[in-house]
């Protein structure tokens, strides 16, 4: 079972990232349970998704749609505030993958700048997702996730793929 928190502010595409992860998990035969933020907070407030992925059919051990504090394996922090706001969900040896202006360490990245340079400031979330999967933090591989993105990508698919791959590329760089 993997428990993932996706955190950002309204309008950053937290729901879309969560959807990509969930659909990928389903494709691989896992079961998923998710909790989303809708309503008032979507207007620029802190937005969070809880995502739990477990072996297919095993509802055992997974019934609550919410992650408890100190239990998340991964925190995808789309906004610099996200760690401050939702870092407490992470377990002691969990991984934070964060979008910050000044990258420090191998798990953070200025995804917003990379997205702006690609001419798609809105795709910072996909840069970070690519980075997360590239660093091996997630239950799946980059190809599987890219396949889902292709299926769900919509109108701006080419740009989205570019952003996703740019993030994955950064992860390879920081690995060497």
């Amino acid at each position, binding site marked *: 079972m993997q428990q993932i928190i996706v955190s950002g502010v309204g*309008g950053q595409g937290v729901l879309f990232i969560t959807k990509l992860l969930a659909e990928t998990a389903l494709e691989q035969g896992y079961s998923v349970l998710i909790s989303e*933020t*809708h309503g008032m907070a979507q207007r*620029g407030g802190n937005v969070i998704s809880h995502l739990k992925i477990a072996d297919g059919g095993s509802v055992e051990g997974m*019934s609550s749609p*919410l992650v408890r504090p*100190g239990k998340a394996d991964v925190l995808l922090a789309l906004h610099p*505030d996200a760690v401050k*706001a939702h870092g407490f969900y992470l377990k002691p040896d969990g991984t934070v993958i964060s979008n910050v202006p000044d990258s420090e360490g191998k798990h953070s990245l200025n995804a917003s700048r990379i997205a702006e340079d690609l001419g798609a400031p809105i795709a910072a979330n996909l840069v970070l997702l690519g980075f997360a999967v590239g660093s091996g933090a997630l239950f799946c591989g980059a190809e599987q996730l890219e396949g889902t993105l292709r299926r769900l990508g919509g109108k701006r698919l080419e740009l989205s793929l570019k952003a996703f791959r740019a993030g994955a590329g950064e992860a390879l760089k920081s690995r060497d």
Partner: protein
Amino acid sequence: MTTRKILLGNEAIAIGLVESACTMATSYPGTPASEVLGTLVQIKKEEGLPLHLEWSINEKVAFEVALANSFAGRRSAAIMKQVGLNVAADPLMSAAYTGVKGGFVLVVADDPGPHSSQTEQDSRLLGMMAKVPVLDPSSPMEARDMLPQGFALSERFEIPVMFRPTTRVCHARQDMEMKPLSPAHSIAQFEKNPARWAATPKFRLVLHGQLNGKLAEIAEEPSLAPKLLNPGISTPPHGSRLCIVASGVVLAHAMEIMRDLGLWEKIPVYQVTMPFPLSPKFRDSILAQYDKVLVLEESYPVMELQFQNREKVQGRTTGTVPSAGELLPERVEDILRTFAQLPPAPRVEPPTFPGRRPTLCAGCPHRASFYAIRKAFPKGIYPSDIGCYTLGVNLGAVDTVLCMGASISQAAGFYHAYRSVPQEEAPAICATIGDSTFFHAGIPALINAVVQGARFVLTILDNSTTAMTGHQPTPGFGSTLDGTPVPQLSIPELVKACGVGFVEVEDPYKLDAFTDLLKKADLHTRSEGGGVAVVIARRPCIMDRNQRGSWVRQEMAVNEKCKACGLCVKQFECPALQSQGEKEPVRIDPALCTGCGVCRFVCPHGALEAVSSTP
């Protein structure tokens, strides 16, 4: 081959309604219930189902429309959020007595937390007051499966059934198996029976007696009986015998935590899917078998009160379970540990980080309206209402938010309160209400204000949609959900028909002209023979995909005149305007700026300018 799909709780509910052969669904949008009807609209389009679907003008109307369909023998659902049920409480109480014919399910979504509501009220308690059975699903999948049961129960006992999910069911997602959907056919057949459908008080007494009889039978209905989820636990040789009785999503939290703590094999857990009426047989057997009973439910003590036992039963009435706030899994863990006498959990404290407050979108026309209101009436009283524009509180232009439509009645109340104060000293009163909220509950309040001689400025923030809940159409839309053209209601004409003598429309993006209009409206309220003055701020919602391309996009730039005073950031609060530090000029974030150009009028130094414009 079966396919699995990940469904939002509200989508699962919509599918459950179709799978129950429901023929009509009516709703008024409200978080967390809004996506149910939206999904039905989509399914209807894709599958070509013969369903009548409508976004009704308010919840009371939605309830009554769907109820008549049920009187005609057809399965129906009315869908709303918990505070919407307050508006529909009147028909609910009465419909419990008359009963129904075709299955009638009232889907009402509660919002413990609250996340997007003015209260944490528990609709199940209103179900109890109305004397209708209540079903309480604990997951999206269960919600879908429970609906056919709800309709069957409703039809068998000819009684409205309340189906009560909470935010964590509505806005959870879960993978589940999909089946082909098939259309429901049922012919309308209304059988006249005035003693029932039009019962006078004398017959109402008879109906009440019948209702009590139905409830007593429903309470012991075997298909809805509470279930022991972890059978085979032996009684402890010494110490007290414990058990847990739970319903809704709190049960889902508790199950996972109990497995984690090794309590699943030790303490019996009973799931109650119908918290009202709680089976008296179940109650008695629980009280006979156990010494301590922990009741877990959201958000008020509904099952707990029906246990009527203060020695053995623990919950909100004993202070074991907190009486306010959502029962998050971490809180449930603390309660379970105390109940099972385990050591407290190692505490992971959430940070004191205040979090970002929600704000109106960049380019939102409401921001311009509120800014103008502050400017026109710096010392005014600002009653407001429910919608995105509640966020005008950030701009200091919202003083009260009570419930749908209250802005207008409260503006009238404030006017009468200050009536004895000399006119020069009386504060300006400027109420704000959105177009959808005005249709929902504002019209009677406006008529009342006019005929009671109140005087104030009412600004109707007309963005031609119900924005907060996902852009549902309003009566100003001019077509039904099927695309059939219907009369398009005009707000100015309606306002005039309510007896208002001053009605003017202006675009709030033209900030200066709009501010002047507000001042003119205020003069009308103070003039001889004046009264309520209505200003309609008309400008489509910037996020509404159905009404695009209606403004000239300004390419904005910050010039050298910026004094870094921060006024635009603090008082106008457009998310695209960002402070870069104390002595630095502000920056316009190109990813967020919509080019509305309103900030041009805000900067007193002329530092924000339009460099070009594109239509």
